């Protein structure tokens, strides 16, 4: 990473100058142009401008969050005052949301659902990906194609059958009822297979000679080698399930089994135009995730890139 940046920063110097010169062909003209002072001022100004533009854009990106928090700290009477700083800040809105809703319960529900789903996906997708990457058995190719083909089916096509299943099997209003569609993901199986293909066969054969059984080889030899991929898959799965909306909306009837997004959606549409309360609810839903993101931003972004590029 660092070396890349250095190389790029250095190489950017001659390029810019050559382009701005009418006669870029001779190497000597290049040397001419890079007189330290002129080049420095121009580059510094351009760079500061770039930093500034991107900073303004970046602040624009997080502005809705700032506005959300500002509004959530205003009293009902001040909500239309539209100043960034609340005239008389109060935490009453948060208190009211916490009292009027089952926020703690919704938060716990989301946490349980997202955590169990993530653990399940990490384990079973790794196991299936490993098997499809390292075993040849009758039907293995067919199974792989079958799993891959499910990627093309949109979730929305399945919610009606899932709903009927839930009713018939009495899964509605339970954690399993919310989780079951996501406990294994075809995308994850495919991703893990890609990564396990890179694990050398010699290593696996050596472990067999050492008397490891096949599960021990997977668990103790292969899995530790693809840890970054597992971590990436976990981040992706957790985020997706934490923010999932359409299926939890359908799968849950009772108020106390709602996940956070579903609960917040119901509360917001019932509160109609009480935006001081709605913004407090929105802040309660987004701020914990934003804090976790800021703490683990490096790992999270790396994970998103890893899953994005291999997928």
């Amino acid at each position: 990473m660092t070396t890349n940046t250095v190389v790029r920063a250095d190489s950017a110097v001659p390029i810019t100058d050559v382009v701005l010169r009418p006669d870029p062909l001779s190497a000597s003209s290049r040397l001419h142009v890079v007189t330290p002072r002129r080049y420095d001022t121009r580059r510094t100004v351009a760079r500061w401008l770039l930093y500034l533009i991107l900073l303004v854009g970046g602040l624009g990106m997080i502005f809705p969050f700032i506005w959300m928090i500002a509004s959530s700290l205003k009293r009902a009477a001040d909500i239309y005052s539209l100043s960034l700083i609340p005239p008389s800040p109060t935490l009453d809105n948060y208190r009211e949301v916490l009292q009027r809703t089952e926020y703690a319960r919704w938060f716990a529900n989301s946490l349980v659902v997202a955590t169990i789903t993530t653990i399940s996906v990490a384990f079973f997708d790794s196991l299936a990906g490993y098997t499809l990457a390292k075993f040849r058995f009758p039907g293995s190719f067919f199974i792989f194609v079958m799993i891959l083909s499910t990627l093309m089916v949109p979730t929305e096509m399945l919610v009606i059958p899932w709903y009927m299943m839930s009713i018939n099997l009495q899964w509605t209003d339970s954690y399993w009822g919310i989780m079951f569609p996501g406990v294994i993901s075809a995308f994850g199986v495919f991703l893990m297979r890609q990564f396990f293909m890179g694990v050398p066969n010699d290593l696996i054969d050596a472990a067999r000679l050492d008397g490891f059984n096949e599960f021990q080889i997977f668990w103790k030899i292969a899995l530790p080698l693809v840890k970054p991929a597992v971590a990436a898959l976990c981040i992706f799965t957790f985020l997706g399930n934490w923010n999932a909306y359409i299926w939890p909306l359908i799968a849950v009837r009772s108020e106390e089994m709602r996940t956070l997004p579903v609960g917040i959606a119901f509360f917001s549409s019932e509160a109609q135009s009480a935006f001081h309360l709605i913004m407090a609810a929105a802040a309660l839903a987004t701020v914990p995730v934003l804090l976790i993101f800021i703490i683990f931003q490096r790992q999270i972004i790396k994970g998103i890139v890893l899953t994005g590029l291999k997928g």
Partner: protein
Amino acid sequence: MTLERRRWIWAYAFMAIPLLFFLGIRIGPTIFAFWVSLHQWDPIALKRPYIGLDNYTRLADDPIFWKALRNTWIYVLVGVPVSLIISLSIALGLQRLARYVGFYRILYFAPYVTSLVAVGWVWRWMYMPNGLFNDLLGRTGLGPFNFLGSPSTAIYAIIATTIWQGLGFQVIIFLAGLESVPTVYHEAAAIDGASGWQRFRDVTLPLLNPTLVFLIITGVINNLQVFTQIRAMSSQGTGGPLNSTISIVLYVYQQAFQSLPSKMGYASAMTVVLFLMILAITVFQLKVLSRNNNDY
């Protein structure tokens, strides 16, 4: 038992639960959705008569379905190109920064990790006739605009929020893609006298092609399934005003889970149409990607 056979048994044991899952919870329900789409299906009714392709012919005569289909493609055809242009520009800028890249990435990526329901309501608040945007516009003598309340602007207001929320993901993927473009090519092109724009068009863009294809396809598929932000932002969450923001998935949800009697057969027929569109795009993607592999 031979060693090979014994390994087969391990493999089947490892695959047992995943296979059960995919057959029972993915493939079975997919086939079942086709089956339901051929029936008049109300879960509480005793009879669910087989009606052949009637649901599909009724779709063709349903003005709201056509509206939803048209809107869905507006979400795709406006949202995807605009967000790609913005995110690529940002990525090209960020790539040039030597310091504070981590900080800048936090700013641009933050919306992506948050719940679309919650931020949908935040935007709804800013879009209100007496909200922030109109206050700012009012100071310059413009407006007020009823962004979400007017059939001509509501869909674009929702698209803007969608772009904002997904931008960070695209920026990050573009940054990763740009990093894989070797600087040597740039230097070579520069020495040959290529301008900044020419270098971008003839060097960066072609080498960025796989990233671009990936982002276009994921963007198209995500936008075809647009639902949450419309529920959060349109008036009463029904895809209004005057169905100007309704999408296929929202209409499916209304027909299957909100209408009385429930029209699950009809809704399933719509999901089959959605599936066919995604299938077509996936097949197209496979063709484009395999062509790329031959090129480079």
